[in-house]
């Protein structure tokens, strides 16, 4: 179980994609899963976001429903089959973002306690200005929730993004120690980052047995 964490615009999805390509080319059985992607809560999430019905608590719980559903269908079965699961964002996203929105840190940890602890978590550290630059050059507008506009920090999306994501960054930094996430310098050149990541992944895969993907052994990940 390998996951990537970091604020929006940190480049984590790009790096995970490159990692996936590499693992597949070397014959590893890989399954990819992404934060907030289950069909189950899509409609509630859309309605909540569009009509601005979401509070910090319901925002958090809807993501937890999405996670629990993906844990059942996307994460546990491939792990039990001995595959490598790549997750774009994991529980640490909730621990950082939901707490920045105002829920209690112990509460959100309890909500996600059914989760497994990943074998490797890569944390893409990036200064706010660089992430903003990347996001604004890619698309015209910042998304409402990504900028933390729902928290009411500023009426200006860019300013709101700056304040909100700074809080998120600060919490991520604390989580790095608490959960042993491996920091990656997300300002480095893309191929350089990928080289560092592949070395780390190679390390955790040293004892990986491809035959396990035939279902001969159980899960090795332990609970959070």
């Amino acid at each position, binding site marked *: 179980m390998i996951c990537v964490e970091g604020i929006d615009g940190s480049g984590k999805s790009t790096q995970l994609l490159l990692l996936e390509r590499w693992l597949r080319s070397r014959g590893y059985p890989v399954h990819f899963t992404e934060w907030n992607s289950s069909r*189950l*809560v899509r*409609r*509630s999430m859309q*309605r*909540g976001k569009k009509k601005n*019905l*979401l*509070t*910090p*608590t*319901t925002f958090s*719980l*809807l993501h*937890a*429903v999405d996670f*629990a*559903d993906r*844990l*059942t269908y996307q994460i546990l079965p491939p792990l039990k089959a001995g595959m490598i699961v790549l997750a774009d964002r994991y529980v640490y996203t909730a621990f950082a973002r939901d707490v920045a*929105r*105002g*829920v*209690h840190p*112990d*509460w959100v940890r*309890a*909500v996600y*306690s*059914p989760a497994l602890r990943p074998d490797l978590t890569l944390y893409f550290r990036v200064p706010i200005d660089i992430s903003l630059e990347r996001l604004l050059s890619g698309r015209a507008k910042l998304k409402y929730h990504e900028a933390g506009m729902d928290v009411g920090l500023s009426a200006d999306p860019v300013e709101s993004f700056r304040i909100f994501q700074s809080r998120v960054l600060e919490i991520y930094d604390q989580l790095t120690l608490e959960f042993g996430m491996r920091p990656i310098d997300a300002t480095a050149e893309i191929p350089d980052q990928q080289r560092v990541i592949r070395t780390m992944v190679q390390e955790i895969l040293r004892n990986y047995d491809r035959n396990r993907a035939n279902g001969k052994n159980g899960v090795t990940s332990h609970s959070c």
Partner: protein
Amino acid sequence: MASHPTHAKSWYGHGMPYLTKKRLPGHLIAIEGTDGVGRSAQIELLRPWLELEGYAVSNTGWTRSPLLSETINEAKAGHRLTVTTFSLLYAADFADRLEHEILPALQAGFIVIADRYMYTAFARNSVMGADPNWTREVFGMALVPDLVLYLDIDVESLIPRVIMGKGMDYWESGMHLALGIDLFDSFERYQGRLIDEYRRLSGEFGFVSVDARLPIEELQGELRKHIAEYLSGANDRSRRDSADSRASTRKE
């Protein structure tokens, strides 16, 4: 005579730390009891009575939030959820109603009658095999009701009521748990376990238990008696509090 709690409002766990601490002068009354025990019929009779007594009343029911009711119905139709996912879905529905219906009404001084409250999740999750401590931690964001009225019934008395009412339904019979080969057996076992669990919770959380086998009017009389007792205690308390605060203002 049952003793009713007269403490000020409190949160079950960590609550919602981002909410500003506003006064909640209203009253939160939860009606608990298993499926088909007659909760909604009783609530329908309570409302006009309370309004005649001069109280403004707001109702709220399980899985009725605008944010999630559709998703919950779809999920049930698809039969694809684990108990963990279900619990979180119900918790989200609950939180949505708490923040958008219950708390604003309490702030405005209404009596809120909740048709089921977090204890229903505690009972169901535990029967379905979820870790009870986990369920309770998830519901740590909940406000503790001022009064919980529990409509108690045994499964033998419940069965004819449900059959003559809307009939045995797939979920209320616990068919998703595969407890029995037919609907009746499954209903009997599932509801029996739920009722055991509610009774245990009743002791733990100090529910006021009323005998739901009574005829409708008599049961309504019992409920009104307990609510009136609670309200008169609460009113005495708030008169005392305001007298105290007037006295202290005079001293200054």
